[in-house]
């Protein structure tokens, strides 16, 4: 469960203060499927970075699973990211010199999980995501869809409570994009809160809860009944 209270984020550009987020109040429950939409510059990426603890709010409070994570030290925040938050990026962000399996293993290496357990978990995930035959391939030997599936496997291998996806289909063609989205949506059955940032209305419409942003404010927050 995520709760943002009166969150603001201002950047200093030159000698000007630019408000990227203005007074955001937001509450996301477990197993929710949320899409955040808006034109570029609307603050949706900043919001996602804040949710992912990659960035700190200028003011306001961030509660994650009932714990206040706003003022944690960098190291503590890194720990929270590692254990509770998964990221899926538009450009995949796979480490080019590592194989698919090694890329998936990476978060567990950082967490200091023993090698046998790592191998077992990687194997299960590669199987589930249809990557078993691609485990030893490097990212440049994989198709875009396969790369994003490796990235999703990596994001979920630590069993996070929140998965943040920034334009996950942005670099994929339509069909592959849909496949990846279905894979992401399937994760909700495991109790993961899924947040997808997109400027594609069609993709955003798939979420049960849709948030529209403009100029750093939440314009609308609706859950249209199907």
């Amino acid at each position, binding site marked *: 469960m995520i709760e943002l209270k009166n969150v603001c984020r201002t950047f200093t550009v030159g000698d000007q203060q630019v408000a990227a987020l203005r007074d955001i109040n937001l509450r996301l429950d477990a197993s929710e499927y949320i899409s955040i939409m808006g034109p570029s510059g609307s603050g949706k990426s900043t919001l996602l*970075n804040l949710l*992912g603890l*990659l*960035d700190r709010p200028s003011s306001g409070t961030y509660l994650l699973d009932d714990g206040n994570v706003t003022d944690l030290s*960098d*190291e503590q925040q*890194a*720990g*929270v*990211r*590692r*254990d509770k*938050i998964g*990221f899926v*990026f538009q450009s995949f*962000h796979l*480490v*080019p*010199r*590592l194989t698919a399996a090694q890329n998936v293993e*990476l*978060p567990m*290496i*950082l*967490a*200091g999980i023993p090698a046998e357990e790592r191998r077992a978990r990687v194997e299960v995930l590669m199987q589930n995501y249809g990557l078993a035959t691609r485990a030893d391939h490097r990212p440049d030997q994989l198709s875009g869809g396969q790369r994003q599936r490796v990235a999703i496997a*990596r994001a979920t291998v*630590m069993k996070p409570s929140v998965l943040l996806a920034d334009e996950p289909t942005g670099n994929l063609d339509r069909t592959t994009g849909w496949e990846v989205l279905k894979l992401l949506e399937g994760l909700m059955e495991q109790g993961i809160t899924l947040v997808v940032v997109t400027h594609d209305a069609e993709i955003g419409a798939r979420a049960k809860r849709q948030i529209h942003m403009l100029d750093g404010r939440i314009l609308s927050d609706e859950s249209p009944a199907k």
Partner: protein
Amino acid sequence: MKFADTLLFASDSLRGSPTRTLLMMLAMSIGVAAVVVLTALGEGARLYVINQFASLGSNLVIVLPGRTETAGIGPGMLSGQTPREISLDDAQALLRSRAIKRIAPLTVGSSNISRDALNREVVILGSTSELLEVRHMVMGVGKFLPAGDIHESASVCVLGKTIKQELFGNAQAVGQWVRLGDRRFRVVGVMSSQGESMGFNTDEIVIVPVASAHQLFNTSGLFRILVEAKNRDYIEQAKKDSEEIMFQRHSGEKDVTVITQDAVVATFDRILTALTMAVGGIAAISLAVAGVLIMNVMLIAVAQRVKEIGLLKALGAPGKQIRMLFFAEAALLSTIGSMAGLALGYAGSMVIAHLYPSLPVSPPWWAVLAACVTALGTGILFSVWPARRAARLDPVAALAGR
């Protein structure tokens, strides 16, 4: 993150850019090899000098006429006197000391040596039978000077190897006669080849009894007395006794200088050790240069891997861990680089040892250790800044590749 995993990840990323890695290792290994080879040379020179002294004899105390003052001009020089010479009786008197095992008086001069039509200039050493033992000389053929009264001027001589070859060729020399100046001497022995020792080529000398040498050169003073102490512990005592005896015999005048070979060796030892450390230090500068290179390349690596660092941060790696990864890379580089450098250095030392067999070239252990520690130290030290820069990257900017 586990230690082994850190190393594994670091070695993976080193292998990810092999050219860069190889070049950095090359720089590191050249530095280490330079330290190893240069100190090996210095140490070789030191051992060479010490061996030379040891080959002159062990536990030696040397008595020479005249007083060497540290102030430069001795009292004798001001009054226009030459120092009183050391006589053969003075030399024999030294044997009264219980600390002294044996002595060998030395007179040096040069004369003509001839056999039939062959003749040449030669350095003549006047001494006694004791010289063989005192100076650790080795006979080739025949016998050394016969033992006997120090004042007896027997007409016998011992030839150096080269002299024998030049005068006799491959013919038998022992038992034959040669002419030294205006006297005939019978050859009783030929030295085996011992090469150069302290500027004295023992292969090109002729040794005759000291009394005969005095007659040849019409002198009565000694060039030197070589005194061998009973053993190492008696060296100081032998020196003191020699001074005391000479003091009494020269009517209470301190007109001889007594030096111990140990003191000379110790001085050379200190000078050459200092020299070795100096060249080692200069070579170590190249290690520092290698360190700067590592820092430079690491900074570039951080810039090139900004996205990867951002990703690691997003995946939950705290700054500390990212620092550790870069340290591990530097440490691996330095370790492998210095190993390669050691191999290179030892190979180089072996080549030098092969080219100059008389030089005992061996890298001293302290230099090898210092080279490795310096290599590791500079490697890690110079990665502090790049590692900190990587650890402090803002994850959002890093992920965007900015």
